[in-house]
C-alpha cells in the first residue's frame, strides 16, 4: 500500500517529465489502436472477399478436382450433402464449373462458366450482392446471365446485350447457346472479373448436358466458429467416403491465406517500431528518475526496505503511467476508431486496385474486436515493463552506504 502510494506520488514529482512520458505512451497507444483496427479491417476485408465470393469457408469437392479441374470430376450426391449441411445449421450451396468461349459481334474471349443456384447461392455467398449493374440470376429467366466487369469491357457488352457461348458438353457434343446479359458484377475477384459468366444451375446442366452432381459445394460457418473446427464438423457430416475432400479455404488457397497472414504480420513489425521508440523514452525517463533519487534509495534500503520492495515501487511507477496512458489512449481512440469502423476512409483512386488477386475496396473500414484492442494495450504494458526493469533493478540493488555517499 505505502509502496503504491509512494510510486504514485513519485510519478507526479517531476510532473513535466511524467507528463511527457505519459503523452508519448498515450500517443503510441492511440496510433497502435487505430493502426491495428485498420489492418484488422484490411485483413478482415480480404478474408471476407476471399470467402464470400469465390471460396466459401469450407469446400467439399472431388479429390482430384483441385489439381486437375474437370467437368467429369463432380461430387455426385451434392443435393443430399447440401441439405444435410443446412440441417446442421451451415449455409451451403453447390456450384458447377466449365470453360468455354464467349463471342459478341466481332469480339471473342475465353470464359469461365459457373452454374449457380440463384437462391441457394444468394443465401450462402455474397456474389449476389456484388452486382454492379442490372440484376442477379433468376431461375425463371434461364437465358439471363451475369458476367464479370472486365469481360463486359473486353466484349463491349452492356445490359441486355447478347453473348454467344460455345463449349464442349459432357457427352462430347458442341454446347452452343445465346444469352442475354442481365447483370454485370462489380470487380470482386480477378478470375470472375476477367472471364466470369454466371448461369442458372438449370441452364448450365442443359447447356453442358450435365444432369447431376456439383463440382464444388461451398459452406459458410458461423462467424464465431473456428475454421478448423468447422471443417472437422462438416467432414463428419459429409461422412467418410472415397474421393471426396473437405478443405478450408486456407487449404484450398494456401498462397492467398499466407499473403493475408503476412499482412497481419506487418502489424507486429510496426508495433515494435513505434513501441521501441516509446520504450527508449521511458527507459531514459526512468533512468533519470533513478539517478536523481539515489540517496533516497539508500535511505529506503537503510531503514529496511528490501530490494523487492524498491523494485516493486519502480515498476509500479512505470505501470501507473501506463495505466493513465491507457485510459487516455483508449478514450481518444474510441471515437476515432468508431468512425473508421462505421464510416471508413475513402481510398479514392486506390479503390478497385488489384493486389495479389484481391481487390481493394473503395472505402477502407477499420474492424475492431476485443482482440484488436487488447493486443496494443498488452504490448504497451510489456514495453513499459521491459523499459522499467533495468532502472528498477539498479535502484533495488543499490548499496545503501554508496547511495548515501552520493551527491
Amino acid at each position, binding site marked *: 500500500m*505505502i509502496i503504491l502510494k509512494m510510486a504514485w506520488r513519485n510519478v507526479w514529482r517531476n510532473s513535466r517529465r511524467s507528463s511527457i512520458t505519459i503523452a508519448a505512451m498515450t500517443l503510441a497507444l492511440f496510433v497502435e489502436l487505430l493502426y491495428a483496427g485498420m489492418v484488422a479491417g484490411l485483413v478482415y476485408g480480404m478474408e471476407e472477399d476471399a470467402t464470400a465470393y469465390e471460396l466459401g469457408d469450407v469446400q467439399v469437392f472431388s479429390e482430384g478436382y483441385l489439381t486437375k479441374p474437370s467437368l467429369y470430376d463432380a461430387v455426385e450426391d451434392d443435393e443430399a450433402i447440401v441439405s444435410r449441411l443446412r440441417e446442421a445449421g451451415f449455409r451451403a450451396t453447390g456450384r458447377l464449373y466449365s470453360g468455354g468461349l464467349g463471342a459478341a459481334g466481332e469480339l471473342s474471349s475465353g470464359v469461365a462458366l459457373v452454374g449457380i443456384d440463384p437462391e441457394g447461392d444468394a443465401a450462402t455467398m455474397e456474389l449476389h450482392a456484388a452486382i454492379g449493374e442490372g440484376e442477379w440470376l433468376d431461375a425463371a429467366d434461364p437465358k439471363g446471365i451475369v458476367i464479370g466487369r472486365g469481360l463486359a469491357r473486353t466484349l463491349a457488352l452492356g445490359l441486355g446485350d447478347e453473348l454467344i457461348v460455345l463449349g464442349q458438353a459432357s457427352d462430347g457434343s458442341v454446347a452452343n447457346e445465346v444469352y442475354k446479359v442481365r447483370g454485370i458484377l462489380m470487380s470482386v475477384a480477378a478470375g470472375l472479373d476477367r472471364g466470369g459468366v454466371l448461369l442458372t444451375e438449370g441452364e448450365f446442366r442443359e447447356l453442358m448436358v450435365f444432369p447431376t452432381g456439383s463440382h464444388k459445394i461451398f459452406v459458410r460457418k458461423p462467424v464465431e466458429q473456428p475454421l478448423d473446427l468447422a471443417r472437422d464438423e462438416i467432414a463428419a457430416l459429409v461422412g467418410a467416403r472415397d474421393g471426396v475432400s473437405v478443405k478450408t479455404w486456407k487449404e484450398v488457397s494456401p498462397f492467398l491465406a499466407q499473403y493475408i497472414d503476412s499482412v497481419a504480420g506487418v502489424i507486429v513489425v510496426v508495433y515494435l517500431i513505434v513501441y521501441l521508440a516509446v520504450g527508449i523514452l521511458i527507459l531514459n525517463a526512468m533512468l533519470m528518475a533513478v539517478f536523481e533519487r539515489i540517496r533516497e534509495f539508500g535511505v529506503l534500503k537503510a531503514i529496511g526496505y528490501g530490494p523487492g520492495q524498491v523494485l516493486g515501487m519502480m515498476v509500479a511507477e512505470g505501470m501507473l503511467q501506463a495505466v493513465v496512458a491507457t485510459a487516455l489512449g483508449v478514450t481518444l481512440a474510441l471515437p476515432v476508431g468508431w468512425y473508421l469502423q462505421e464510416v471508413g476512409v475513402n481510398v479514392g483512386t486506390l479503390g478497385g486496385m488489384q493486389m495479389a488477386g484481391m481487390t481493394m475496396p473503395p472505402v477502407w473500414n477499420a474492424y475492431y474486436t476485443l482482440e484488436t484492442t487488447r493486443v496494443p494495450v498488452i504490448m504497451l504494458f510489456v514495453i513499459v515493463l521491459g523499459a522499467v526493469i533495468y532502472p528498477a533493478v539498479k535502484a533495488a540493488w543499490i548499496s545503501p*552506504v554508496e547511495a548515501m555517499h552520493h551527491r
Partner: protein
Amino acid sequence: MTSNGTPILQLDGVTKVFHQGDIEVRALRGLDLAVNQGEFVALWGPSGSGKTTALNLIGALDSPTEGSVKLEGRELSKLSRRELSAMRRDRIGFVFQAYNLIPVLTAYENAESVMALQGVPPKERRDRVMKLLADVGLGGMEHRRPHELSGGQQQRVAIARAIASNPAVVLADEPTANVDSATAEKLLDIMAKLNAEQGVTFVFSTHDPRVMRYAKRLVGLVDGAVDTDIEKAQGELDPEMVALGG
C-alpha cells in the same frame, strides 16, 4: 560500561579496509566495543577517525573486513541479504545527518513508513505515530511534507521514525551537524528523554562538545580504534572534553 546482562551490541576486533584505486584506506583497525541495553553513547573523534564506518557496520549497512559485529547476539556476517533487510527494519533505527526523509511522504507517513513495512495494524500505527510526533514537538505538523519543514523539524521526524519501529538500538550519524546549536540541544533533549523514559538505546557520532554533554558514555575514536571510553553523568561536560573541543 553499564552492567545489565549481555550487550545488545558487540564489536570484536573489527577492521575495515576501503580500496580507492590502488590506495588502501584502513578506516577501522581493530575496534572493540560493547553497548548494553539502555545506554546513551556518543562516538566522537576527529574527522576520518572511523565514526561513520563503525555506525554503518553496526547498522548492517556494510560488512567488516575482519572481526565480528553482533547485534542482540546475532553475528551479522552470518545473515543473508534478506535477513539483513529485516534486521534493519525491525531491530535498528537510523537517523542520518541529513536527507533522512522520503520527500513524497508527509511527516506522519514518514514516521509511519517502517511500521507499515513491519505490518503493524493501522490503528496501532496511528496511535503510536501521533504520540511520537507530539513527543518530538511536531504535533499539528503531521501533514507537512519534508520540504515544508525546517532541518531540525526534519530530524525530529527522522527520530520519530527511528523510534516508532521499536528497535533494539537507534544509530544516529551526526544527527545535529546540519542544525543550529539551539535546535541541536532540542534534538538531544528529545533523544535523552526517549532514552530515559522508554529505555531506547542510542549510539550516535558527533564532533560537537555541546552534544557530548548529553551522553552518558563517551567513546573516543582515533585512527579507527577506541582511544578513550568514559562514563559520566548526563549533562556534565568532562574536563578533558572542554580542553579538547570547547
